[in-house]
Structures are given as C-alpha cells and as structure tokens.
C-alpha cells in the first residue's frame, strides 16, 4: 500500500510546516534560555515533534489534550498562536497565562490544550477525570494524555490506566518514549522496555509506534481516537522517539549520559527528512516554508520583546474563581 496515497501533498506540506514551526520555536526558546531571556527551565521537543504532529492530525477541533512539562509542541499542535506563546515564555503580560504559568505550565483552553503539567504523572489522573466528564456530558470528545517513559513507572500511571479502562473512558494515553527520564535511561528505570506491553495489564490495546514517522503516528492515533470516540475505552500508544537537545536548562545534547553515536543514529531518522521524502517535497517548497516559519517566529519574538511586564496586581488575581 502506498502510504502517500491516503493524504495528498498538501497534507504533507502542512505536516512539514507544523513540524518546522515546533522545531524552530523550540530552538529559539533554547537559545533564549541560554541567554537568560527565558528563566526557570525549558524542556524542548526538538527531535520528537512527529508525535505531536501525527496525533494532532487525528484529532477534531473539539478534542482536548493534556501534556507534560515538555508541552510546547502539543500547545502549538493544537493551534496556539506563536505570539502569546512566546510572550508567556518571556513572562510577559500578553502571555497565554498572563505570565503566571511559564514554560512548564502552558495552557490554551480555547484551543483544547488543557495544560502542560509540571509534575511527572500529574496529567494522567486528570485525563481520566476529563474523560469521565466527557462521558457524562456526552459531547463525543476525546482526551489525549501525553507522558514520558519514566512517568509510566509512577503510581498515577497505574491508577489512571486502571480506572480509564474500568470505566471505558474516551482517553488515549500517548507515551513519548525518548529512552531517558532526565539523565536516567529507561534501561535503568523501567522493568519492561516496551511500555506498550503494560497495556495488557489494564485490559486495553497497547501499540508500539515509530515516533519519528508522522504518518505512522497519525495512523495509530487515528485508530485509538476513533476507538475512544466509539466508547470502547482507552488505548496506550508508545511512540519510540528521541530528543535531539538535552533534557532542559542547557543540558548538552550528548555527553553526560548519552553518546554522540546514539544521537547521530537517531538524527539520521529525523522526522523532517522522512516527511520531505514521504511527501515528495521540493527544495523550493522546503525553503519557502522554512523561511515563512522563521519569519513568523521572529515576529513572535519581537512581539514578546515589546510586550510589557505584568502589573504587580496580577499576582493577586486568579487564585479563586
């Protein structure tokens, strides 16, 4: 079967644009962090964008997403505007969260991005609650919950998978297995290397997916989302992927706990290259999109730079509804 025939070239161009938007955004943010323009910590998705892009394609506008502290990609995938996103990372008043959440807690509810969750595992029980509400309200929505390989070792993973399966909630659990939880490799932390194997323990389908292939992710996600929407319950997708930059905070791409060889081998499988190949994108098309993306990001940076600091009074707001 020709993979390409499902989706026209236009779709691949779109995928490419989305992927590059995420990539350039993340690279820029990483640069700013090292310059001190962005404070705290940033966790970038350079290298693993395909998961967000592929899943995003499988969702409807009304669906909702919960992500991890490494949540810029998912926020962008849902359609968050670049300017308020960059402004939020700069802590400005015009940011998505008025400067009060920052990188790890980026939220864009109107676009169905319920939030990046700062605590590992925090999102999964919440996703179960979201799924429960969807079921009670009968809105036909689906909730996708992203989490990392090491998060699947924590208690919340277990509880959330159990109740979601028990109550047949419309949730799709997507594990972005990039083989490391900060500096600890999955080999040292996880009792099974294929996290999808755990799904069986909860009576739900578990699928291993090539996380560097947008198309593959899309197909697997589509199936899981449709299953959820039909009311048949949750699924666990394990997307094998790799982050090209460090964990966060200027952590180097390789060295302390990863080898250059490993990094290079994954870079050969860069989703970007695969997309170009799969979509038959020409170099003009690629350059054009690259340029447009760069300009859009530059514009967002200018916007964020020029935006004002929040008023001190803002600190006192939004505690209670």
């Amino acid at each position, binding site marked *: 079967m020709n993979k390409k025939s499902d989706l026209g070239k236009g779709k691949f161009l779109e995928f490419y644009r989305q992927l590059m938007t995420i990539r350039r955004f993340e690279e820029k943010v990483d640069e700013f962090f090292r310059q001190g323009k962005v404070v705290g910590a940033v966790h970038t998705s350079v290298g693993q964008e395909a998961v967000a892009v592929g899943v995003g394609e499988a969702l409807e506008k009304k669906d*909702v997403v919960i992500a991890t502290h490494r949540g810029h990609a998912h926020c962008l995938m849902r359609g968050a505007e670049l300017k308020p996103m960059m402004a939020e990372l700069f802590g400005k008043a015009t*940011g*998505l*969260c*008025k*400067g*009060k*959440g*920052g990188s790890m*807690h980026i*939220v*864009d*509810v*109107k676009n169905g991005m*319920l*939030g990046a*969750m*700062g*605590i590992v595992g*925090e999102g*999964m*029980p*919440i*996703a*179960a*609650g*979201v*799924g*429960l*509400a*969807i079921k*009670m*309200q009968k809105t036909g929505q689906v*909730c996708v919950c992203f989490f990392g390989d090491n998060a699947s070792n924590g*208690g*919340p993973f277990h*509880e*959330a998978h*159990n*109740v979601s399966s*028990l109550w047949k909630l419309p949730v799709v659990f997507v594990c972005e297995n990039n083989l490391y939880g900060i500096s600890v490799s999955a080999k040292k932390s996880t009792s099974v290397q294929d996290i999808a194997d755990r799904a069986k323990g909860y009576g739900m389908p578990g699928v291993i997916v090539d996380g560097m292939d947008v198309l593959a992710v899309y197909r697997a996600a589509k199936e899981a989302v449709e299953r959820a929407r039909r009311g048949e319950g949750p699924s666990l997708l394990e997307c094998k992927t790799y982050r090209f930059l460090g964990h966060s905070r200027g952590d180097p791409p390789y060295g302390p706990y990863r080898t250059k060889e490993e990094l290079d081998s994954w870079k050969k499988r860069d989703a970007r290259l695969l997309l170009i190949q799969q979509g038959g994108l020409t170099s003009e098309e690629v350059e054009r999109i690259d340029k447009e993306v760069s300009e859009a990001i530059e514009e967002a940076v200018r916007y964020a730079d020029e935006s004002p600091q929040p008023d001190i009074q803002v600190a006192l*707001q*939004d*505690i*209670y*509804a």
Partner: protein
Amino acid sequence: MREIKYADALREALAEEMRRDARVFVYGEDVELGYAFTVCKGLIDEFGRERVFDTPICEQTIVGVAVGAAMMGMRPVPEIQFSDLLTMCMDQLCNSAAKLRYMSGGQVKFPLVVRTPAGKWGGFAAQHSQTLDAWFMNVPGLKVAVPATPYDAKGLLKTAIRDDNPVLFIERKLLYQTSGPVPEEEYLIPFGEAKIHREGKDLTIVAIGRMVPESLKAAEQLEKEGVQVTVLDPRTLVPLDTQAILNSVRKTHRVVIVEEGPKRGGVGGEIGAMIAEEILDELDAPIRRVASLDIPIPFNLALENYVLPNEQKIVEAVRDAMSF
C-alpha cells in the same frame, strides 16, 4: 425545629445539590452502600450509578479525576474515606486543584469538593485518627471548611458545592451521629463567617470541629466557678473570619484556641499569631492553646484520651489564663 444527625444533614445537602444541578456527582470508596460513615448511603437509589459510584482504592486518582472533571465543567464531590489518606492526594489537591487556575492565568477553574472525616473515633490509632486541618491552611488556592454541628454541616456543604473553587470539607468522625436543629427550608452558610455559640465577658475560646461541643461543656463548668467564656467557632479555616475573632478578644482580653490536631504547627499557632499581631494591647493574659500532644495517637483508649484534648484540659487552660 426538627433535630437531625450530622451525617444525615450532610446527606441531605448532597441530595439537594444533586437535584438542583445535574453536574454534581458523588464518588469514592464504598459510597454506593455508604459503608464507611453512612453519609452517602441511599443516594444511589435516587441518582443511579451514573452519579453515585464506587472507585478502586486510588486516592490520588480520586482527586485527580475530580480535577479533570471539574476542569471540563462538572462539579465532582469525591469522598476520601479517612482524612489521613489525604496524604495520598497531596499532589492533585495542592499542586493541581489549588494551583492550575492561577498558573493558567484564570483559563480554568475547579468547582470541586473533597469530603473527608478527621479526628478521634476511639481505637483507630495513629493512621486513622489524625486531624490535619493545619496542613491545608498553608496551601494557597484551597478553601477549608470544618463544620461542628449538623446545621453548619449542611449549610456549609451546600455552599461548598456551589463554590467554583476547590474546597476541602473536613468532617469529624465522632460528630456524625450527633444531633442538632436543622431547618426544613433551604439555607446556605457563607464561608468566612464565624458563629458565636455563647457569649461571656471573661475569655474567648476559639474552637474547631469536635472541640466546639467540648468547649461548650467546659464553659458550663466554668460558669459555676464564676468565669464567663465566649465560645466562637470559625466554621471555615480558609477563609478565616479574623474580624469576628479579633472583635471578641477586644471585649474579653483573653483567648484560648482549641483544636484536635497536634499543637506544634497547628491552627492555634496561626490564629494566635494573628491575634498577637493585630491586637497585642488588648491582651490581659498570654494566648493559650489546647491541642493534642505532639505524639502519634495510641490505640489504647485511655492512652488516646491522654494524648487528645478534652473538656477538662480546656477548663484548665481557661483557669490558667484567668489567673495569669
């Protein structure tokens, strides 16, 4: 006026709010049969398993589910069977429910109520008898209610359910079967409004939860000795009715704060410091606190009584303040 039990008053509140608003639902461990302390008993008959259902033992996810559901517009009212188990839910309660609204710049809100019983039962020992109220006073973003009477329980629970914010509703095990007057007509009690159970010019007792009836007994004993005390129940710890407390101490010039949790780092420290900060010059005696000893609660009943506060300890504290 009719008299009903604290547990029944809570059940009425739940039922009335569920009738009023289809988004309200109740869940937790053993709630379908209402097995633990009977509060949820019978609700499933009226509302069905869609709105009254049991969960596995997974406190963290019980509250996590409340967070997610509330975020989507439902009004969940989970029950955590023992307040000691709140320790399992700290992340979802204190990091998610209390903080996500703020961090999102107001994009989401969490109209949820976590109900849970605290305090002595009699032989439940150290892991099932605790009163952890003070911990949650220290978490910005939460509201905390601590009703002492059936009247307060019903009125405050209704208010909690209608509040668009996360509320920790801490009940008392030994109060469930106590009775008190509760009107048939609907009423709500606002948060941040204390109740003065009795007034006396000599000293103010600020009492919480089960210590309210203990303080009232102490007050009667003290009256025979010629000491007239005011008994004031804040009813909610967050928000706290500081004005009522200060106004009372301005009149009596002496105060004793009574709680069931351990003294060190307890509610009494917060309220006492607040009083000293605001009205030092009104005090004719040092602020006294009556609380549990800083010891895990023993199983043996006599030892348990030794560790926990009671009427007699309150009387002694008042006498001490009066003679200082």
